[in-house]
């Protein structure tokens, strides 16, 4: 499939449905602007949080004069600050993402998904950053809260060509080390890597206080393995060819895939992050609506 124009990466239907639901941070994230997301930085903003005894060095402006008048004690009023968050979109650009049983490759699906999410995030005045990786981060768009930067993001998405194998775990560790502010890390990948290192990477991100959402993108053929007759499978990531009769190994294959997914899902659950199985046969709007609705319910 030819690489799309940057503008076609946005699925209008997906956007229109998802806009209403919005992507809210499930955990407290850091942000610059007062907004919909709670900030861990308490201070002197609009919404009252608690009282604290005055200590030396506190700004006397924040003293609660009413309490001082009644009780003669020095208390400081603290308020919860609403901030905007930073969402880091990590898109797997390894060769295995090039697979697609139909015209739609996993990579293209992932690009559209990433673009839609970026648009949603920017549209609600949060900040979004984009990293395209394989064995390491190949391309990076720094965070921006300007909706106009969506074009920049999409141009980067559209221009990206996968070349290499995957090393997701290493990339996640790098990211975890680099992220200075807590935010939302959205991983979009087929995760065809050693699941242990992947989970360790996720754990590292969570340890940094980030919310992590994992979108595992798989083709319907990879999920159903509907081949018959004699088939030679040519591996996309420099793996040796295999000639076999797929019908006869289908059950084993499906069991293998299911076990892999189960391990990932359970690992994600342990790290309290969302694991979303993405079948590229599923339209984007359905996927986004379903996920965002689920997210609202569990908030």
């Amino acid at each position, binding site marked *: 499939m030819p690489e799309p124009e940057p503008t076609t990466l946005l699925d209008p239907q997906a956007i229109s449905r998802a806009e209403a639901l919005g992507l809210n941070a499930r955990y407290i994230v850091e942000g610059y602007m007062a907004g919909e997301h709670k900030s861990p930085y308490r201070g002197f903003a609009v919404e009252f949080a608690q009282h604290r005894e005055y200590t030396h060095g506190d700004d006397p402006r924040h003293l609660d004069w009413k309490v001082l008048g009644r009780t003669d004690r020095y208390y400081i009023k603290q308020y919860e600050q609403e901030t905007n968050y930073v969402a880091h979109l990590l898109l797997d650009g390894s060769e295995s993402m090039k697979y697609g049983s139909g015209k739609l490759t996993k990579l293209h699906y992932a690009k559209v998904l990433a673009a839609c999410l970026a648009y949603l995030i920017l549209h609600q005045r949060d900040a979004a950053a984009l990293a395209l990786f394989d064995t390491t981060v190949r391309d990076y768009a720094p965070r921006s809260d300007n909706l106009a930067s969506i074009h920049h993001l999409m141009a980067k998405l559209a221009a990206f060509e996968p070349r290499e194998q995957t090393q997701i775990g290493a990339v996640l560790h790098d990211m975890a080390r680099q992220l200075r502010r807590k935010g939302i890390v959205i991983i979009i990948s087929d995760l065809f890597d050693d699941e242990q290192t992947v989970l360790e990477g996720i754990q590292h991100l969570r340890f940094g206080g980030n919310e992590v959402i994992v979108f595992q993108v798989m083709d319907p053929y990879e999920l159903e393995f509907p081949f018959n007759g004699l088939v030679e499978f040519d591996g996309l990531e420099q793996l040796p060819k*295999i000639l076999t009769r797929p019908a006869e190994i289908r059950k084993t294959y499906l069991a293998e895939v299911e076990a892999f997914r189960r391990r990932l899902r359970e690992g994600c659950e342990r790290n309290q992050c969302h694991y979303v199985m993405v079948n590229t046969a599923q339209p984007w709007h359905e996927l986004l609506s379903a996920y965002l609705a689920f997210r609202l319910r569990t908030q």
Partner: protein
Amino acid sequence: MSFLNPILLGGLAAIAVPIIIHLLHRRRFQKVVWAAMRFIQASVEKNQKRMRLEDMILLALRCLLLALLALALARPAILSEATDVFGQSKVTAVIILDQSRSMGMSDGTATRFDKARQAAEQALDSMPSGSAAAVFLASDLVQAIIPEPTYDLNLARKVLREAALTDRATDLFPALQKALDTLQGRLALRREIYLITDGQAAGWRQLTEIQRALERARTEIKTHIILVNEHEEKNLGLSDLRLAGGLSPVGQSLRFEARVTNYGKEEVRNVRVGLSVDNDPPSDEFTLDSLPAGASKTVTLFAKLRTEGFHSLTARIPEDRLAADDTRGLVVRAIREVKVLLVDGEPGTEMRESEVFFLKNALVPVSADHVADYFIKPSVVTGVELAQARLDDFDAVILANVPDFNDSTVRNLENYLRRGGGLMVFPGARVNTGFYNERLAKRLAILPAEWGEHRGQPDRDDQFVTLQEKDYEHPIVSLWNDPGAGRLASARFFTRLQMKPLPWTGPTPGPATSPGKTDLPAQGSSGRGSSAGTGRTAGQEAGPPQIIAKYNDGSPAMMERAWGLGRVVQFSSTADTAWNDLPVRLAFVPLIHRALGSVVARQDEGLNVRVGEPFTRRVPNDYLDQDATFHKPRRTGVTRDLERVELIEGWPTLKFDDTDQAGVYDAAVGDPPFKAKFAAQAEPAESSLDELSAAQLGTLREVASVLTWAPGLSLRGLVEKGRTGVEFWLPILVLCLILAGLETFLGQWFSRAK
């Protein structure tokens, strides 16, 4: 272990097919670029061993299946006395049913033929299912009703039930040889011949050849000779019936000779022989007082034919167990008058000196009062007057001592013969032998012989030759084989011309001339045509020269040949007493009458044929391409056979081949119908009771199994004992089917999703 179809063992090479397919199959696959290789790799590693094992099992099954199929097609067999574990192997058989006349012998309730049919059906019943049988009917002819073995045994049964007895003679060798030829080309373990016959010795004339042929095929083909005869001691038969005189005029009392033969072993007394005309009550009867065993007696019977045309005469003796030979039919054509032109080459001065004096008297051997009523009407002309004579007004022309004649007379004579006229030629002192030899003998081949040198002196009465004493073969003189008819050899020949028979190379098939142009009608009741222009060359119309009688020194005395539709009789001595004293002998009248009968009614010879010989008769052109109906003897109802009148050798000819039955046949063609009769006469030898001797049976037993069958006996038991050998193709085929089923099941089972 042997293979009935060894060439198909080459099919074993087909084992390579599944292997090749397997290998080719591995080169034909779908290519898929795939991301999730790790899962496939893991799955394949888990299944690899099992899949390879399944592949090997299926491949082995397929190879085995093809190998067994090739083996089954090659039809392995073991010749052994083994028990019939797999059922009896199939039989390919030829059933030969003797349908000759002797099979009509009855034991009072059923004929041998009826029994033979039953035995044949039992032979069919004794064959295991899946067997094939051909059916031949044998007499002196092999009739392959089912020429190649058929698996439809019901058809064979039907054919056997519908088979009819014929009056043909027997010769079993051709039938056996044909059966052997048929079976030798067949691929079958058990090949059998069933010859069902009555064991009459006459059918086994070629016993040595039969034995040799059966001996050669003995290892491959088993022959059962099934005899259905019951010993019979008595049989009386009519072995011959013929017209004694050469001519059959209307209203005259005609002499017929019926020959009765006692084929039995005992003397028979008081045999009444009757003769009837056209199925009327017997017109004459004679009782033979006594007929010793093995003897034959000729009975003379008289009958008158009331009308012109064809008449059937039937001689009868009382019916015995072989009824077929107790009647015998004969057909004669009655003629109103015979006009004879006597050409006198030397009239002389007195009546007695005339060259034809004796001939004229011999032709009309009645008193002066009855000359006018007599059926032979002779006219006399001189040699000079011959040129003006209208030959077509006469039935026969006799040239006596005519020196020679001109070309137009030769042409007239040629056309006259062609249209069916008769010619007799006597030499004499005045005859120009050079003319006769050059023109009539060599160029036109009208005469059967050239005349050579004079032999003997006319004035030396003491030096003479006579005619042969016995062994008269020609029909004209066969009468004198019977001493009761007088002696032909009593005549003395003082002078004669040497006769040199002309060479004959057989009929030259000329182009079939159009009847419209040739206008060559047949003789007979239709009369003669008026003109004859043909493009035929000399010799084409001439029949073979035949010697009628010889002198006692062995040289030919009388010869004849057919020419066109007519006939020529040539003598070597004079018609008067100049060179011999034959004209004053008693035998002269019958000799001349028989010779006249022969030249006048040449085509009527074909009215009485042997059973099985075709009847042919030339008919006028008007009947060409019309359908003729034939009614066979012994056939009841209105069943008729149809045959078309076709051109044969350029003449419209009525032809009928199916003369299996003895008796009188009726034929009719056209409108107004031309009606004819003819008779088929059976071979007298078929009446013989002689059976195969014990020694002969012993010889046959060496090469075949000889069984004597009678109603009530089970042929199955007798035949099955001799059947050996087992074929294995069926169990192998069943195994193939099981393997094919197993292969399909395992193929499905192995390729199910795992």
